[in-house]
């Protein structure tokens, strides 16, 4: 990637101006593009960007030394970590501003127009701002007072992380109410769902204690509850899920193919 570099430090601004100029010309041209040509253009772009990965997979490789390990590569392989991944990540990160803008716009309007709940919106705006200020400030390399780190520590570890954990642990309550409601022996299906859930749950918890006196060797081990639960997981659950996954995988393959070839009617191409 040495040829990417330009010699003079200041000329980067020149390059930036050039890029922006080209951008405006291209966008200007795009706005004049006839409606009928939009879809072919989009399909072409999808095809080209998809082609990269397809070629990377299908082209033959040779062995290259990387971090002391021989790895198979072709001339596209190196571009994935160096160009394509950063490009996709940079683009997503730059687009994050869009989402942020929409969030901020809604809540800013709430505050300005004093809609009901505007205090909450204000709290949201303030907390966003303070997280950004203290996040950047405490990460900045330049010298900053110690209390900045402390405030960030309270915001992140004290409030944010604990809210994360609290939200995560809410699921336990919902599991209880969902299983109370759903695990009724109403139909045959509901009953087997319940039975296998109970056996596995018992096998993982104090079920092992119930059958602790049963020897864990020979045929006796078949009467231990943890044997049952791992049997269900390995012999029924795993092939069942695998069969579903095969279908899901093929569905994804077909969908990827349709998008790549531009024959998918739907969300992406706007028809």
């Amino acid at each position, binding site marked *: 990637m040495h040829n990417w570099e330009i010699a003079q430090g200041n000329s980067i601004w020149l390059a930036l101006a050039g890029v922006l100029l080209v951008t405006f010309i291209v966008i200007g041209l795009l706005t004049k593009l006839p409606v009928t040509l939009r879809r072919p253009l989009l399909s072409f772009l999808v095809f080209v960007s998809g082609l990269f990965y397809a070629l990377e997979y299908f082209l033959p490789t040779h062995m290259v030394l990387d971090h*002391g390990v021989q790895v198979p590569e072709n001339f596209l392989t190196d571009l994935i970590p160096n160009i394509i991944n950063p490009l996709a990540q940079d683009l997503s990160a730059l687009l994050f501003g869009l989402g942020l803008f929409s969030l901020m716009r809604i809540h800013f309007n709430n505050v300005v127009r004093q809609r009901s709940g505007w205090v909450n919106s204000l709290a949201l705006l303030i907390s966003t701002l303070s997280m950004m200020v203290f996040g950047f400030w405490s990460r900045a390399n330049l010298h900053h007072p110690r209390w900045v780190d402390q405030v960030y520590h309270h915001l992140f570890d004290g409030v944010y992380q604990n809210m994360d*954990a609290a939200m995560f642990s809410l699921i336990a309550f919902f599991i209880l109410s969902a*299983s109370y*409601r759903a695990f*009724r022996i109403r139909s045959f299906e509901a009953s087997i769902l319940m039975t296998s859930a109970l056996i596995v749950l018992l096998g993982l918890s*104090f079920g092992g204690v119930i059958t602790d006196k049963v020897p864990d060797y020979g045929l006796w081990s078949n009467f231990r509850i943890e044997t049952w639960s*791992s049997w269900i997981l390995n012999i029924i659950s795993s092939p069942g899920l695998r069969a579903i996954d095969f279908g899901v995988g093929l569905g994804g393959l077909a969908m990827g193919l349709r998008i790549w070839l531009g024959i998918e009617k739907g969300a992406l191409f706007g028809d």
Partner: protein
Amino acid sequence: MNNTTNNEMPLLEKLQKIDRRILYLILIIVIAIPTIWPINIPNAPLPMSRDLWNTINATPPNKIVLLSSTWTKNTRGENQGQMEAILNQLMSRHIRFAISTFDPRGSQVALNLVNSVAKKYGYVYGKNWVDFGYQPNGVNYVKGISVDLIQTVKRDAVLKKPLQDLPVMKGIRNADNIQIVVEISASSSQYYWIQFLKPGVKVGFACTSVMAPEAIPYYTSHQLAGILWGAKGAYDYEQLNVEHHTGDWGSGRQYMGPLSAAFGLVILSIFVGNLAMFLSRKRTRQ
């Protein structure tokens, strides 16, 4: 007779459509009581916990153990107990060890835990243990240490010193000097080790119980030397530690009490729900 069933009916119907908030309140109480006044639930360690314990216990003095600690506050309930139990065993047996993480937020969590346990055993950083820090590129890291550990990691994460200058790394060059890598994880990060670590080096997996079923086939095919299955794995490990005097009880046993109570509540609530449904159905049929 008729009278009693008439009285029963509203109760049964109520039980069937019990307000979820009452269930939640019961759950809180059922967990709170054994948390404040701990109870001990008997336990029988699983073979896969035992295998992990034995492998780590057999570490010869010329090898180290690598703990890859990829968890944060979110799964503290399971992973902290597991890691603490393993650390107890390592330190009481005077085994050298290193830690690293695949999660940027995980390194501080791991450091805090190791430091608090190390105080108990007088373990010294740099002499008895070392931190390789956050490893953003998992594949390269694992491939790299298979060949040359010192060159791949270069500097430790706490003192920022070259690895070869630390006494803990004496005689440790590559994956052959690692007795076992234990991935303590909230996700399926064990695949890094299963796929890319030099074949022959043992891998253990201490995971949340969601991930365990997925990992069991790798244990049966001996790609994993042992598995700690969620909170039960932590309890198993503590029990093995106590049996062999390599550590004390910790959060594994502490949490199993409230956990078992909660499981009991789940089972009981399913039972009561079904019973109420059956009885009221029977009534309507009459």
